[in-house]
């Protein structure tokens, strides 16, 4: 009997505790716990009330539970200040969206997964990933999200929270493994999003199997991978020309789609600047208020995934027939509309990333000096 599990999933997707759901249903928490555990069979009225409280159609509760991700690893990598409940809510929401992907994918040609497993150094791993994704070895990546979607990665846009900027999962079912990245959307700092996605990709590529490494080592490797992927050493060395100033770095930001702070860190990690220069530049960033917010005119627009919307359009037509989409996915049409807002429409100019559309007008360095 899946009903209890399905009620728990609906509750957790909405980020509710048993107490909170009980309050909405005007019943005891104990009753909710018993129903979820399968010790008590709910009445029709009870299910209707749950459906109303959690904003799912009744049909949602007739289905077997959708697959859940292993939460232990996600909890381990979450920020220390994050609350378990907050993380759980985000993960359950991601599972809900992933279930929609699965329903759509069953009716379309599968996209072959081309994310390699690399146990080499982060630098080598980044090089291999660029090669596999068909990206130039030393050029800025125009749209990391779209490149990864074409390589079989499923993106899930989650709401801003204190738990994560992003998290990733290799979802295993039968013989198939699907890489999935859940990232916070709808923000202004597209550079932070790109770095987070590249970091999670590092985990997908390098930490697919169990490793005897500390959490810090694993995180450091993922950051090193992200830096090399977005700012390949061979290319960025020739652009990080001394003396480095915030102005010079700001010119590189729209080109590479990374923050000035990330460029400073990269220059330090590659020994282009000394520790003293690194601290000086960081201090200047603080003094200018750029540690909190880099200049708005240099914002890297957010990348929006587009695969989910595209799949829905291919299955349910364009414009999407939301009634059928809703019936098949056991999700209310208005929620599906809300979910798809985070996924780019072709020609949706607002989310064409910086590197595809931003050109910074400055004279070449040689002309200026």
């Amino acid at each position, binding site marked *: 009997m899946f009903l209890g599990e399905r009620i728990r999933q609906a509750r957790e997707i909405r980020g509710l505790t048993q107490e909170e759901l009980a309050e909405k249903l005007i019943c005891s928490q104990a009753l909710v716990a018993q129903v979820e555990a399968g010790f008590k069979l709910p009445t029709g009225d009870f299910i209707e009330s749950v459906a109303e409280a959690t904003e799912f159609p009744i049909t949602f509760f007739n289905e077997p539970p959708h697959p859940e991700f292993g939460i232990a690893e996600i909890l381990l990598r979450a920020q220390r200040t994050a609350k378990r409940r907050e993380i759980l809510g985000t993960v359950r929401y991601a599972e809900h969206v992933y279930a929609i992907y699965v329903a759509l994918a069953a009716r379309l040609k599968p996209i072959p997964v081309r994310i390699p497993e690399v146990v080499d150094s982060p630098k080598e791993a980044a090089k291999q990933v660029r090669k596999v994704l068909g990206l130039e070895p030393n050029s800025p990546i125009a749209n990391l999200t779209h490149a990864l979607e074409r390589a079989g990665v499923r993106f899930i846009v989650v709401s801003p929270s204190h738990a994560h900027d992003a998290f990733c999962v290799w979802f295993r079912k039968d013989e198939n493994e699907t890489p999935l990245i859940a990232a916070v959307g709808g923000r202004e700092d597209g550079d932070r999003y790109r770095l987070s996605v590249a970091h999670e990709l590092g985990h997908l590529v390098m930490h697919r199997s169990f490793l005897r490494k500390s959490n810090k080592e694993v995180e450091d490797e993922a950051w090193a991978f992200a830096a090399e992927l977005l700012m390949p050493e061979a290319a960025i060395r020739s652009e990080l020309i001394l003396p480095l100033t*915030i102005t010079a770095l700001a010119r590189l930001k729209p080109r590479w789609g990374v923050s000035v702070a990330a460029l400073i860190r990269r220059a330090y990690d590659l020994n282009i600047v000394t520790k003293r220069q690194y601290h000086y530049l960081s201090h200047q960033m603080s003094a200018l208020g750029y540690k909190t917010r*880099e200049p708005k005119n240099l914002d890297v627009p957010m990348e929006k995934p587009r695969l989910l919307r*595209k799949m829905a359009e291919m299955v349910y037509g364009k414009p999407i027939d939301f009634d059928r989409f809703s019936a098949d996915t056991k999700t209310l049409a208005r929620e599906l509309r809300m979910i798809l807002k985070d996924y780019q429409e072709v020609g949706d100019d607002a989310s*064409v990333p910086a590197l595809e559309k931003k050109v910074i007008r400055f004279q070449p360095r040689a002309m200026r000096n």
Partner: protein
Amino acid sequence: MNDLTLASEPNEVLQAVRPILQPVYEALETAVPKAAQIITEQGWQNNALLFSHLVRADVKAKLHGRQCPIEFDDVAREVVMESVCNDGLSTSFEDITLKIFKGTVLPRATSSLRETFYQHTLPGVEPDMETAQLRSLVILWDCDEDGNNLKIFLCCPKDRYGTYAWREVIPHPSEWMVVTLPDSASEAADDFDELLGNDEDAEETGA
């Protein structure tokens, strides 16, 4: 000939002189940490005179002959640093003379030349604050002894006592960078039809 007067809004003046402020800011941004580094590396005892002397020398070398950015008004200009004793920093933009001083306040004029400069080239006469043409500006820079907390101001002098009509923080050049969106790249490429199968396939599968 500029149409700025002493009554012009500070922001209007800042915008008008951006092509010269940007290279000056960048030169100071480079010279200040470099001076601190030289003093440390040489093991010299740091003092304000030595520090500002090193900065002035470096700024002058960096600025003279440098191209101003053309993105603000599409005019090609070259920075010409005037010869001033003790590595004093003075240049001009259009018909405005700009001097670069260390500190956060204007020093009192101790020479007739400085007095004339402060009075917007009107010797012996205090300028009319409503109508006088703006002919003099001062760029003030300051930082701590390690070169941290660099602050740069644009200041409009008023009289020989070192009072000023206004003083504004010069925005960092990165805040003035112009980023444009070419029309050609507004459509994202869409190759998912091929990857996922075409619309006909979708219909066959029950869509």
